[in-house]
């Protein structure tokens, strides 16, 4: 079977985010985009499946502007076989539209047994594209997966949920979203990075139609009032409790 991994380009998690002055998006000047950290888990898992002889081919697919190519090439350097970029220059794209574009690209492939996504993108953090894609493609979907074993026509997975964990058996083809803990993504070696440059890289178009949702404005986080240092050491505790009770009214 083939394994598809959905890869998004995002600002690094420790990047400073500056909202563009017109509030339409972020100021991308100087931002070094990276492969979404959760998508790294997904790529790693796919490459491992290939190494274990469970997958024939690993295809990475990304929707985004031209420079998404760089993170797709990262994924190729990690061991994926080829990449597909669905070009999209919209600054903001809603989760269903991204899922539709991905489903369209995946639909063009034959013999896809597994689609791996990250649990969330660290920019839009919708936690939505994976399950939406699965629903559109008519596949099963298990989210927040920390362990995967591919069997014959099914996969056994372990997932983390709120206050519980679950063992799930899902029929293939299926979409799984990767949670931290699934694996330790490898660093690409220089040799692999060079090799990745020669791997097949295709571009696709998708007709997104009218926007389904728009960003009216992007704002910096609301300012918190400057906090107060109540004091030093355990001596400050009575005053703190008094403030929490009488001023903050949270006790």
């Amino acid at each position: 079977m083939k394994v598809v991994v959905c890869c998004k380009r995002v600002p690094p998690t420790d990047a400073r985010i500056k909202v563009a002055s017109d509030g339409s998006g972020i100021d991308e000047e100087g931002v070094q985009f990276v492969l979404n950290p959760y998508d790294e888990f997904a790529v790693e898992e796919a490459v491992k499946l290939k190494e274990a002889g469970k997958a024939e081919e690993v295809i990475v697919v990304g929707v985004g502007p031209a420079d998404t190519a760089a993170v797709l090439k990262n994924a190729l350097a990690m061991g994926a076989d080829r990449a597909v970029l669905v070009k999209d220059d919209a600054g903001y794209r809603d989760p269903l539209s991204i899922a539709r574009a991905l489903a369209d690209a995946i639909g063009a492939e034959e013999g896809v047994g597994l689609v791996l996504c990250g649990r969330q993108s660290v920019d839009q953090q919708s936690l939505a594209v994976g399950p939406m894609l699965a629903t559109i493609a008519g596949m099963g979907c298990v989210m927040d997966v920390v362990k995967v074993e591919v069997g014959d026509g099914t996969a056994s997975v372990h997932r983390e949920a709120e206050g519980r964990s679950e063992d799930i058996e899902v029929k293939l083809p299926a979409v799984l979203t990767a949670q931290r803990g699934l694996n330790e993504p490898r660093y690409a070696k220089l040799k692999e990075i060079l090799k990745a440059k020669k791997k097949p890289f295709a571009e696709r178009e998708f007709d997104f139609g009218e926007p389904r949702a728009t960003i009216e404005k992007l704002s910096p986080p609301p300012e918190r009032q400057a906090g107060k240092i109540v004091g030093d050491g355990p001596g400050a505790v009575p005053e703190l409790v008094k403030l929490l009770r009488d001023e903050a009214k949270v006790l």
Partner: protein
Amino acid sequence: MADTKVLVFCEVQRGRFKKGSLEALSEAKRIVGKAGGGSVVAVAVGNGVGDIAGELKAYGPDRVIVCAPDWLEGYNGEAHGRIVAEIAKSEAPTAILVTATLDGKDLAPRVAAALGVTIATDCTAIDSDGDGRLSVVRPVYAGKAYATIKIADTPQVVSLRPNSVPVAEAEGAAAVETVEPSFGAGDLRYTVKAVNAAKTEKADLTEADRVVSGGRGLKGPEHFSILEELAETIGATVGASRAVVDAGWRPHADQIGQTGKTIAPTLYLGFGISGAIQHLAGMSTSKCIVAVNKDPEAPIFKAADYGIVGDLFEVVPALTEELKKLQADG
């Protein structure tokens, strides 16, 4: 507009409706109120929910729809998603609200995609107009920016971060209606083989009203007992920084932050946590933040409402004592 109709998925855990679902129900009432009329439909799914569905009436839904097939024990995203989508198809609401717990985050996108509409997840505020059209605010880039989003699709599907909007009781004379799914357990693409549930009555981290959180400053897993005791005193749930989780001192499920849980409790108390940007991403929407750190320059003090500079091993026991005293005094 009188044809404003908000459908609210009401989540059940351990035989009780989640507080976040009651918040969503209350928000739905506000949306309908602003639209000058319309209706709120509460939906509950799963074996046994019929027994408790009546509790929802206190929050004012016009109708309560229950789907409780005996084969649906516990949460199954695919089954729950298909059932809610079926109900939504026949009800044709203008909006669907879900609480953004982990199950809610799992469910809502499946429902939206089945209806062919998009979604805005984990919203911290909702505004609506006289036509029941929503404008939602959601933190993005790990809380480093807030996006105000307008959804063009109908229904407008939104998940709401727990603890973001108030619960309000309201008059409601709703009768409980029962529906059956069009499919059975055998039609599902996935089955839950085993569930390992945490044996606790504590509120889940994402929904807890109070959180006590520990960082590397605790120096070892054995010292978390002092935080447990503090948490016990004020009915809080214990969380942790990633450094602590990576060190294996606490389970991954306890991690707060960008790559852990997002929380918005009324009170967050952080001990021996430096306040890295990725940690702040998970807790900066808390209403009141208290930090205890021996380093006066620790970045967490910039995010905190109140801070104590000092050794947590001295401050935590003193705080627990003081809070016990406060409770004894009533």
